[in-house]
Protein backbone atom coordinates (compact mmCIF):
# COMPACT_ATOMS: atom_id res chain seq x y z
CA UNK A 1 0.00 0.00 0.00
CA UNK A 2 1.22 3.52 -0.69
CA UNK A 3 2.86 5.55 2.00
CA UNK A 4 2.04 9.13 2.93
CA UNK A 5 4.76 11.33 4.39
CA UNK A 6 4.04 14.08 6.93
CA UNK A 7 6.77 16.61 7.60
CA UNK A 8 6.52 18.26 11.05
CA UNK A 9 10.17 19.26 11.32
CA UNK A 10 10.66 22.39 13.43
CA UNK A 11 7.30 22.09 15.16
CA UNK A 12 7.08 21.70 18.90
CA UNK A 13 4.64 19.96 21.25
CA UNK A 14 1.74 19.40 20.72
CA UNK A 15 1.82 20.23 17.00
CA UNK A 16 3.51 17.02 15.76
CA UNK A 17 0.75 14.97 17.42
CA UNK A 18 -2.07 17.23 16.25
CA UNK A 19 -0.80 17.15 12.65
CA UNK A 20 -0.37 13.37 12.85
CA UNK A 21 -3.94 12.94 14.01
CA UNK A 22 -5.21 15.08 11.14
CA UNK A 23 -3.09 13.21 8.59
CA UNK A 24 -4.00 9.73 9.76
CA UNK A 25 -7.69 10.44 9.16
CA UNK A 26 -6.97 10.49 5.44
CA UNK A 27 -5.04 7.21 5.41
CA UNK A 28 -7.02 4.06 4.61
CA UNK A 29 -7.12 1.43 7.36
CA UNK A 30 -4.01 -0.70 6.88
CA UNK A 31 -2.19 2.16 5.16
CA UNK A 32 1.00 3.71 6.42
CA UNK A 33 1.87 7.22 7.52
CA UNK A 34 5.47 8.29 7.82
CA UNK A 35 6.00 11.24 10.16
CA UNK A 36 9.28 13.16 10.13
CA UNK A 37 9.89 15.30 13.22
CA UNK A 38 12.64 17.12 15.07
CA UNK A 39 10.90 17.42 18.45
CA UNK A 40 12.77 15.02 20.77
CA UNK A 41 9.60 14.75 22.90
CA UNK A 42 7.80 13.17 19.96
CA UNK A 43 9.68 9.89 20.51
CA UNK A 44 7.68 9.09 23.64
CA UNK A 45 4.62 11.03 22.52
CA UNK A 46 4.17 9.22 19.22
CA UNK A 47 4.26 5.92 21.07
CA UNK A 48 1.64 7.10 23.56
CA UNK A 49 -0.50 8.54 20.78
CA UNK A 50 -0.48 5.29 18.83
CA UNK A 51 -1.25 3.25 21.94
CA UNK A 52 -4.20 5.44 22.88
CA UNK A 53 -5.62 5.64 19.37
CA UNK A 54 -5.11 1.92 18.62
CA UNK A 55 -2.75 2.51 15.74
CA UNK A 56 0.48 0.64 15.23
CA UNK A 57 3.86 2.29 15.59
CA UNK A 58 5.69 -0.10 13.31
CA UNK A 59 9.05 1.48 13.94
CA UNK A 60 10.99 4.68 14.36
CA UNK A 61 14.50 5.90 13.78
CA UNK A 62 16.70 8.75 14.90
CA UNK A 63 18.85 10.17 12.15
CA UNK A 64 20.92 12.82 13.92
CA UNK A 65 17.97 14.48 15.62
CA UNK A 66 15.53 13.91 12.78
CA UNK A 67 13.02 11.31 13.88
CA UNK A 68 11.07 9.17 11.47
CA UNK A 69 7.98 7.32 12.66
CA UNK A 70 6.15 4.67 10.68
CA UNK A 71 2.55 4.39 11.73
CA UNK A 72 0.04 1.92 10.38
CA UNK A 73 -3.57 2.96 10.67
CA UNK A 74 -5.43 0.21 12.46
CA UNK A 75 -8.83 1.72 13.19
Amino acid sequence: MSKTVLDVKGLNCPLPILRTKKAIKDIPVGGELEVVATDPGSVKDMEAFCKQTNNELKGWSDNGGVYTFNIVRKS
Partner: protein
Amino acid sequence: MSDANAKSMSMIVTKGTLDWAYPPLILANTAASMGLEVTLFFTFYGLALLKKDLNLKITTLGNAAMEMPMMGMHMTMPNLIGAVPGMDSMATSMMKSLIKKKGVASIEELREMAVEQEVRMIACQMTMDLFEYDQKDMIDGIEYAGAATYIERATQCDINLFI
Protein backbone atom coordinates in the same frame (compact mmCIF):
# COMPACT_ATOMS: atom_id res chain seq x y z
CA MET B 1 -16.79 12.34 18.86
CA SER B 2 -19.70 11.30 21.10
CA ASP B 3 -18.59 7.70 21.12
CA ALA B 4 -20.14 6.17 24.22
CA ASN B 5 -16.94 4.30 25.04
CA ALA B 6 -14.63 7.24 24.50
CA LYS B 7 -12.52 8.42 27.41
CA SER B 8 -13.17 11.94 28.55
CA MET B 9 -11.44 14.83 30.26
CA SER B 10 -12.52 18.07 31.82
CA MET B 11 -10.54 21.07 32.94
CA ILE B 12 -11.31 24.16 34.94
CA VAL B 13 -9.37 27.01 33.33
CA THR B 14 -8.74 29.86 35.76
CA LYS B 15 -5.76 31.74 34.38
CA GLY B 16 -5.57 34.20 31.51
CA THR B 17 -1.92 35.09 31.07
CA LEU B 18 0.01 34.15 27.93
CA ASP B 19 2.09 31.50 29.71
CA TRP B 20 -0.79 29.92 31.61
CA ALA B 21 -2.97 29.80 28.51
CA TYR B 22 -0.78 27.03 27.16
CA PRO B 23 -1.28 24.07 29.54
CA PRO B 24 -5.07 23.80 29.19
CA LEU B 25 -5.08 24.36 25.42
CA ILE B 26 -2.21 21.95 24.78
CA LEU B 27 -3.80 19.25 26.91
CA ALA B 28 -7.26 19.82 25.44
CA ASN B 29 -6.00 19.56 21.86
CA THR B 30 -3.80 16.57 22.54
CA ALA B 31 -6.54 14.72 24.39
CA ALA B 32 -9.03 15.45 21.60
CA SER B 33 -6.48 14.18 19.08
CA MET B 34 -6.20 10.98 21.09
CA GLY B 35 -9.93 10.44 20.89
CA LEU B 36 -11.02 11.87 24.25
CA GLU B 37 -14.10 14.02 24.66
CA VAL B 38 -12.91 17.24 26.21
CA THR B 39 -14.78 19.88 28.18
CA LEU B 40 -13.21 23.15 29.30
CA PHE B 41 -14.87 25.33 31.93
CA PHE B 42 -13.48 28.89 31.82
CA THR B 43 -13.85 30.88 34.99
CA PHE B 44 -12.41 34.09 36.44
CA TYR B 45 -9.27 35.14 34.53
CA GLY B 46 -9.54 32.08 32.31
CA LEU B 47 -12.42 33.83 30.52
CA ALA B 48 -9.82 36.06 28.84
CA LEU B 49 -8.96 33.06 26.64
CA LEU B 50 -12.44 33.14 25.10
CA LYS B 51 -12.41 36.77 24.00
CA LYS B 52 -12.50 37.31 20.23
CA ASP B 53 -9.70 39.79 20.61
CA LEU B 54 -6.93 37.91 22.37
CA ASN B 55 -4.44 40.23 24.00
CA LEU B 56 -2.62 37.96 26.42
CA LYS B 57 0.40 39.13 28.34
CA ILE B 58 2.88 37.79 30.81
CA THR B 59 4.37 39.48 33.83
CA THR B 60 7.66 38.66 35.49
CA LEU B 61 6.30 39.97 38.80
CA GLY B 62 6.13 37.40 41.56
CA ASN B 63 7.54 34.71 39.29
CA ALA B 64 10.89 33.77 40.77
CA ALA B 65 11.15 30.73 38.49
CA MET B 66 10.99 32.66 35.24
CA GLU B 67 14.28 32.42 33.37
CA MET B 68 14.28 33.73 29.83
CA PRO B 69 17.06 32.42 27.59
CA MET B 70 19.17 35.26 26.28
CA MET B 71 22.48 35.07 24.42
CA GLY B 72 23.28 31.65 25.82
CA MET B 73 22.44 32.69 29.39
CA HIS B 74 19.27 32.82 31.42
CA MET B 75 17.89 36.15 32.46
CA THR B 76 15.86 36.63 35.62
CA MET B 77 14.06 39.82 36.51
CA PRO B 78 14.09 41.32 40.01
CA ASN B 79 10.56 42.35 41.04
CA LEU B 80 11.59 45.97 41.44
CA ILE B 81 12.61 46.16 37.77
CA GLY B 82 9.64 44.05 36.63
CA ALA B 83 7.39 46.70 38.17
CA VAL B 84 8.71 49.44 35.87
CA PRO B 85 6.07 50.50 33.31
CA GLY B 86 6.62 48.80 29.98
CA MET B 87 8.33 45.73 31.42
CA ASP B 88 5.26 43.51 30.97
CA SER B 89 4.97 44.33 27.29
CA MET B 90 8.71 43.82 26.85
CA ALA B 91 8.54 40.42 28.56
CA THR B 92 5.47 39.57 26.47
CA SER B 93 7.14 40.36 23.16
CA MET B 94 10.25 38.44 24.22
CA MET B 95 8.08 35.44 25.03
CA LYS B 96 6.16 35.73 21.76
CA SER B 97 9.35 35.80 19.70
CA LEU B 98 10.66 32.76 21.59
CA ILE B 99 7.39 30.94 20.93
CA LYS B 100 7.74 31.63 17.22
CA LYS B 101 11.42 30.73 17.09
CA LYS B 102 10.90 27.38 18.84
CA GLY B 103 8.04 26.23 16.66
CA VAL B 104 5.51 26.43 19.49
CA ALA B 105 1.92 27.06 18.39
CA SER B 106 0.34 30.42 19.14
CA ILE B 107 -2.62 30.57 21.51
CA GLU B 108 -4.81 31.74 18.62
CA GLU B 109 -3.80 28.65 16.64
CA LEU B 110 -4.38 26.28 19.57
CA ARG B 111 -7.78 27.76 20.31
CA GLU B 112 -8.80 27.47 16.68
CA MET B 113 -7.74 23.82 16.64
CA ALA B 114 -9.67 23.17 19.85
CA VAL B 115 -12.82 24.56 18.22
CA GLU B 116 -12.13 22.46 15.11
CA GLN B 117 -11.75 19.34 17.27
CA GLU B 118 -15.10 20.03 18.91
CA VAL B 119 -13.72 20.67 22.37
CA ARG B 120 -16.71 21.75 24.43
CA MET B 121 -16.11 25.18 25.94
CA ILE B 122 -18.20 26.59 28.74
CA ALA B 123 -17.88 30.17 29.94
CA CYS B 124 -18.74 30.77 33.58
CA GLN B 125 -21.88 32.92 33.56
CA MET B 126 -21.17 34.28 37.04
CA THR B 127 -17.76 35.59 35.97
CA MET B 128 -19.33 37.09 32.83
CA ASP B 129 -21.60 39.09 35.14
CA LEU B 130 -18.92 39.84 37.71
CA PHE B 131 -16.46 41.32 35.22
CA GLU B 132 -19.21 42.77 33.03
CA TYR B 133 -18.13 40.84 29.95
CA ASP B 134 -20.38 40.95 26.93
CA GLN B 135 -21.23 37.77 25.00
CA LYS B 136 -20.65 39.62 21.75
CA ASP B 137 -16.97 40.03 22.70
CA MET B 138 -16.53 36.29 23.14
CA ILE B 139 -15.91 33.74 20.36
CA ASP B 140 -18.89 31.91 18.87
CA GLY B 141 -19.80 28.33 19.62
CA ILE B 142 -19.32 28.43 23.38
CA GLU B 143 -21.86 27.76 26.11
CA TYR B 144 -22.70 29.88 29.13
CA ALA B 145 -23.38 27.98 32.31
CA GLY B 146 -22.44 27.55 35.94
CA ALA B 147 -20.85 25.26 38.46
CA ALA B 148 -23.62 22.65 38.36
CA THR B 149 -23.10 22.09 34.64
CA TYR B 150 -19.40 21.56 35.22
CA ILE B 151 -19.90 19.20 38.17
CA GLU B 152 -22.42 17.11 36.27
CA ARG B 153 -19.96 16.75 33.39
CA ALA B 154 -16.98 16.11 35.67
CA THR B 155 -18.69 13.18 37.37
CA GLN B 156 -18.63 11.43 33.97
CA CYS B 157 -15.04 12.22 33.05
CA ASP B 158 -11.99 9.98 33.41
CA ILE B 159 -9.66 12.95 33.97
CA ASN B 160 -10.54 16.20 35.75
CA LEU B 161 -7.97 18.97 36.08
CA PHE B 162 -7.86 22.43 37.62
CA ILE B 163 -5.47 24.83 35.94
